């Protein structure tokens, strides 16, 4: 039996014994996690240490595995939305929208331009919220709490926008097949305008606090680096890949939701280390704000959902007065939505990279198979390779710079 199949503790016990016999050095095992404050979620890293140097490590995950794929196989399509919320809970609107786009692709529904623009706005806001958390927490892990507290109130502002649109802050459950459940109120647009007016000053101040900060630079430059080839080999996508110098972005490679209408840059790094990841995320926040601005300026008029009565819940007053609406309402609520037999893969650029849904339908009320391609899950397998040979404190900062979200990791 291969050594790798043993639990890490047993494998390391053997290594520790050998090393001790060889030169009297005592190695030790450190359990980083499952619920260490520095792990940003519930997952464990069993690390073999020589003093402060990391010799080997193994990630153990699955502590919050909730069997989403199995549940999805037993639920009507519109009820799966609440499962996607809980994948990357820092940017749930992206997951929601990605799921609806998958279903719309299966049904072949044409989405009105206005809906696409509204979706772009909400997805970019979600990306900003995601990056706010990751970048500011990187500051916390190097000992700078101020920046975190300073920008976190702006994540709250974004959550207020979610609340205004959907009624929820964290598990947004946003949208329906074909569009949104209701028109965005003027308050939403006002709040977005306020956000766009206030946030740039705050964000540049935050960047000024850390980007050229001596302590922060010493802790992050040259730490946790990964080359472009390795990153591609490990399946990296999103900011972590772009930090290594590869300008792959799903929004540009396979545009969805009218991303081709907007003018924005893809920030890329060079070294693929923690500092580059930080800088790429910060630059992406600026690009996201640019996209939101353009989308608001070019916002087309039109309906807020596609005209698909078989899939879209009719307004409540119609249900009371119109027989056809009542039938559709009943059919949709009971989950009798016929989705044609098909197989498809749809992906979007999530906060962490390519978020994909692989859907197989068999014409029944539930998907035959639904697989989530979760960027975190694929990125995290490289973690132990990256930290090997470095210091323990570097392992912590590498973990936060990869932006591992436990919900997305485990699904």
């Amino acid at each position, binding site marked *: 039996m291969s050594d790798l199949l043993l639990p890490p503790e047993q494998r390391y016990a053997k290594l520790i014994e050998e090393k001790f016999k060889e030169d009297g050095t005592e190695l030790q095992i450190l359990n980083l996690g499952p619920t260490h404050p520095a792990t940003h979620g519930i997952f464990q890293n069993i690390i073999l240490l020589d003093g402060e140097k990391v010799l080997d490590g193994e990630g153990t995950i699955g502590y919050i595995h909730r069997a989403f794929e*199995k549940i999805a*196989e037993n639920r009507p399509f519109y009820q799966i939305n609440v499962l996607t919320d809980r994948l990357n809970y820092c940017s749930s609107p992206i997951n929601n929208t990605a799921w609806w786009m998958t279903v719309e692709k299966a049904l072949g529904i044409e989405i009105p331009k206005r809906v696409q623009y509204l979706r772009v706005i909400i997805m970019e806001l979600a990306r900003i919220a995601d990056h706010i958390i990751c970048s500011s927490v990187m500051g916390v892990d190097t000992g700078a709490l101020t920046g975190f507290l300073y920008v976190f109130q702006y994540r709250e502002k974004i959550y207020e926008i979610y609340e205004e649109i959907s009624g929820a802050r964290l598990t947004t459950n946003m949208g329906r097949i074909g569009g949104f459940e209701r028109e965005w109120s003027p308050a939403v647009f006002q709040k977005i305008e306020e956000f766009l007016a206030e946030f740039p000053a705050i964000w540049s101040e935050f960047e000024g606090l850390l980007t050229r900060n001596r302590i922060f630079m010493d802790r992050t430059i040259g730490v946790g680096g990964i080359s472009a080839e390795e990153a591609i080999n490990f399946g990296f996508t999103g900011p972590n890949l772009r930090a290594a110098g590869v300008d792959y972005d799903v929004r540009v490679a*396979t545009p969805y939701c009218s991303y081709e209408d907007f003018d924005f840059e893809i920030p890329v790094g060079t070294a693929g280390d923690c500092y580059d990841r930080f800088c790429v995320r910060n630059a992406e926040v600026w690009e996201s704000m640019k996209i939101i601005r353009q989308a608001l300026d070019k916002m087309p008029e039109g309906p807020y959902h596609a005209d698909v009565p078989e899939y879209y819940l009719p307004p409540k007053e119609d249900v009371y007065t119109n027989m056809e609406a009542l039938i559709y309402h009943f059919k949709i609520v009971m989950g009798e939505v016929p989705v044609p037999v*098909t197989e*498809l893969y749809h992906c979007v650029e999530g906060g962490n990279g390519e978020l994909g849904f*692989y859907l197989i339908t068999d014409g029944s*009320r539930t998907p035959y198979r639904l697989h989530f391609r979760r960027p975190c899950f694929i990125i995290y397998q490289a973690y132990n390779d990256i930290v090997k040979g470095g210091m323990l404190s570097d392992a912590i900062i590498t973990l936060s710079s990869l932006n591992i979200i436990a919900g997305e990791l*485990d699904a």
Partner: protein
Amino acid sequence: MALDNQTIQKTLIDQFGLSVKEFHEQHDLLVFEVAPDTLHAVVQFLKENDQMNFNFLTDVCGVHYPDSEENRQFAVVYHMHNWMDNVRIRFKAYLNGKNPVVDSVVDLFKSANWQERETYDFYGIKFKNHPQLKRILNMDEMESFPLRKEFPMEDEGRTDKDDRFFGRTIHNC
């Protein structure tokens, strides 16, 4: 010249003959089927051939088809992506229901490591030459493979809930 689906299809058939079949396009994606014993060679060819250049393994997952004939009861689905020409493909390898085994591609793509472990964890599909084929999301002591269709979501012995009252019949759920 950008790589198109006809070229991929022709090159693969020239190279592998009858081991690759059932080519068709589904939602603009070239879809085909690979015999499990040539799977590793196909992935290697797709990755290393200068013309193909599929440099990115997007996704690996399993599917269970309990109603199919015995040699096609499991499928491993691979999504690959060529970033230079921006072409995606999907292919499936159908496996035997009693003994689902397929070659691992971890030596070609490190990203396959955990994805194959996840597939093993959920479906019991074994990947030959995988360096560390053990459960990843579920606990090690578990014996069943939960995403197989024979495992229902809920305990069948449950009596407090009658499906008839929820509009469900055996045909629609």
